[in-house]
């Protein structure tokens, strides 16, 4: 179990983390979600030991590891830009963690190669062990990076925006595959992302960060349907703010014939199985987004419709 207690970290005068508490159970897949500057990457790096907190404690299974250097924490870390060793073959990259072990614990060259091939099979890169990283695609490189991190058999796998540098299709494939790998290997994984869709799709639990503090911790379902703060409501998922601090999702608005909010439609387009209607709340400059079943007729651009929330979060308190 990973336990983070009251972690504070300043960079110059900027408070990257202002007292963060977080508990992560064995086998969990947790997303740290937030905009840039929210402290999510700093938190991940503090857990890894790549950054040291100003105050607070990091515990692995109850043991304080705050002063333990990164090389002794035994965590697997995957970097956004892969950070592969360019001058080494793929197999040597993967087995690097084994080859730097102390003499007595170091597997032989042959064992290392076997282990590397095994891991490459696991990440579906069989037979590419003798290539150099420069000869692989972005998605392949990130899988090499993952295999390299897994070679040291970490209890904890940390991923810093692992799919950030990849294109949409590759990213989607890798996500699903990472999820499988996580359960298959019984890992505890924490990944950082600014992509709420990625967080909701992959994680068991989502930790939403903003300005160095945790806004909400919950399952993807909780974070999406019961946002704890206005920030979470607007950052996770699409969101319209109606008068009175009412946050409502596009699919939680319906068109009514009696009463409701008047909206002037200024754009309609198809978004998958629905019409996405964008308009302005009449007499204001509040953008309203609304999804309408594509089986129905779409309203004309320029027309005025009336909408009413079916379900909403109210933050006027």
């Amino acid at each position, binding site marked *: 179990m990973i336990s983070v207690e009251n972690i504070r970290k300043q960079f110059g005068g900027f408070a990257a983390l202002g007292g963060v508490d977080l508990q992560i159970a064995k086998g969990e897949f947790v997303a740290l979600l937030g905009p840039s500057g929210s402290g999510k990457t700093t938190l991940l790096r503090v857990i*890894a*030991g*790549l950054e040291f907190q100003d105050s607070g404690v990091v515990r692995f299974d109850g043991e304080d590891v705050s002063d333990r*250097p*990164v*090389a*002794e*924490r*035994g*965590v*697997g*870390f995957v*970097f956004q*830009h892969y*950070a*592969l*060793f*360019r*001058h*080494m073959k793929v197999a040597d990259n993967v087995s*690097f*963690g084994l*080859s*730097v*072990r102390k003499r007595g614990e170091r597997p032989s060259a042959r064992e290392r190669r076997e282990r590397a091939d095994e891991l490459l099979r696991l990440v579906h890169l069989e037979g590419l062990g003798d290539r*150099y*990283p*420069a*000869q692989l695609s972005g998605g392949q490189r990130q899988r090499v*990076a993952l295999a*390299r*991190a897994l*070679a*040291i058999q970490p209890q904890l796998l940390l991923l810093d925006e692992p799919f950030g540098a990849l294109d949409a299709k590759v990213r989607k494939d890798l996500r699903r595959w990472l999820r499988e790998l996580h359960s298959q290997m019984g890992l505890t994984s924490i990944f950082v992302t600014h992509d709420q869709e990625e967080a909701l799709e992959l994680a068991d639990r989502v930790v939403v960060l903003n300005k160095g503090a945790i806004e909400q911790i919950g399952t993807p379902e909780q974070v999406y349907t019961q946002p704890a703060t206005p920030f979470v409501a607007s950052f996770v998922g699409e969101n319209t703010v109606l008068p009175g601090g009412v946050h409502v999702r596009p699919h939680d608005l319906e068109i009514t014939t009696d009463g409701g909010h008047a909206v002037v439609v200024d754009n309609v387009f198809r978004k998958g199985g629905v019409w996405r209607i964008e308009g302005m709340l009449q007499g204001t400059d509040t953008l309203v987004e609304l999804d309408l079943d594509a089986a129905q007729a779409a309203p004309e651009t320029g027309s005025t419709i009336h909408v009413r929330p079916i379900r909403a979060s109210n933050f006027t308190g």
Partner: protein
Amino acid sequence: MTSPPVRPPRRRNVIPGFGLTFGISALWLSIIVLIPLATIFLRSAHMGLEQFIAVGLSPRALEAYRLSFGTAAAAGVVNAIFGVVVAWVLVRYDFIGKRLVGAIVDLPFALPTAVAGIALTAIYAPNGWIGQLFDPLGIRIAFTPIGITIALIFIGLPFVVRSVEPVLADLGRDVEEAAATLGASRWQTFSRVILPAIGPALLTGFALTFARGVGEYGSVIFIAGNIQGSTEIAPLLIVTQLEQYNYDGATAIAVVMLLVSFGVLLGINLSQVASRRRMGA
């Protein structure tokens, strides 16, 4: 019926101008480097092999080569080690006066070499600031090969720093962090990850320091003492020959130096081609 004329496919390149720029390069290299060097060979060619060997490979000349190439290599090695440290500090850390340090690194290039030679001699002479510390220990620096090496280290300092710096910057911190997360010690990270990555640039820096050191004259003659057979460098020997109007002798020594230097530089270049191919760049 006639078919439309078929134009021969023209090779097109998005980066045009190879022919022109290659032509200019070849011409330029010829005027600046090859033709002057060729005259040296021409001059020595009419000597005849026996006379050439008698002068170019005389015991005195051999001593001078040994000294020149030996001290240049030693200076290259020392600069390779400390140049990497300096480059490292300049790339990886931010500190007050960083720009100033960066400018100091280039100073040896800007200074007239004779000035450097006189300054170094003053400091390392037995009664100089640093020389007097070593003199009681029986270590003489000025007027020995040690002094020559120090002068060559001084004038060659910028080469390694400036060739390694951009490669280190490009290497990125995350690669070092990756090595650390995998359990590598600082030394393992350096020797297994950083050193191989900067290796080609380091070798370039070494080669430049070496080449500069072999030909260096101005800064060395003051600190060398110029004792025949022990601190007489090859370039000085050439000048001595010239002063005695022995042009044949001077060119013979020059040819030998040229051939050795060219061989070393070519070897270093070839080894880099091999390593670059491996990195797939």
